[in-house]
């Protein structure tokens, strides 16, 4: 199981801040593709930065069961 976190407009689009994906192993890009398939209105996820276990990651970085992957839309703090 991989924990997925969605924020801001992604949370609104998915109707949830947290999702569980039953995936044992894969890449960040795999997770992104699965999410887009399951939630066709999550297109904005392409503009989001992925973070694995609270650190920014790249599409080909690995994720495995127990990891948390967050999709971070363009930020606007300050």
């Amino acid at each position, binding site marked *: 199981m991989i924990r997925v*976190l969605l*924020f*801001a*407009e992604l949370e*609104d689009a998915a109707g949830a801040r947290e999702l569980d994906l039953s995936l044992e192993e894969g890449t960040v890009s795999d997770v*992104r593709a699965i999410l887009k398939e399951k939630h066709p209105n999550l297109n904005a*996820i*392409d*503009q*989001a*930065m*992925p*973070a694995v276990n*609270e*650190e*920014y990651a*790249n*599409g080909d970085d690995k994720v495995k069961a127990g990891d948390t992957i*967050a999709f*971070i*839309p*363009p*930020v*606007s*703090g*300050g």
Partner: protein
Amino acid sequence: MVFKITDAPIDVGRVIEQVEDRNAGAINTFIGTVREMTKGKRTLYLKYDAYVPMAEKKLAQIGDEIIQKFPDAKVSIVHRIGELAISDVAVVIAVSTPHRGDSFDGCRYAIERIKEIVPIWKKEHWEDGTKWIGDQRETTAYPSGKPRKEDLI
């Protein structure tokens, strides 16, 4: 030095105290507040949300980056989340250094970096609707879904 996300009002004086130092001659403080009018549109209130544990890590990372540039600096950053009214304080940054130029440069660096790498989002509430605001720096944000390399320090 403190790096914190909070849902309570920020005590500016406390943030400043956290960077006091016998060898600081200068403390620069940046306070970001909720502005009523932006490009002719009236804001009623704002809501800030954050990925709290990662946001606090990234604030601390910004502190480390400033100390790499200015080894004698002390830095504290507190960002508020939740619902904020006009004139409420959203963020307070304090940077102390021995000499004044570095305190300005360090503080300016911190606010620009917050807008690049800290997972905090602002939702504007206007009279005629709401919108999550992205990318205040008006750079093209992660067009490929990948962060720029320099943001991955």
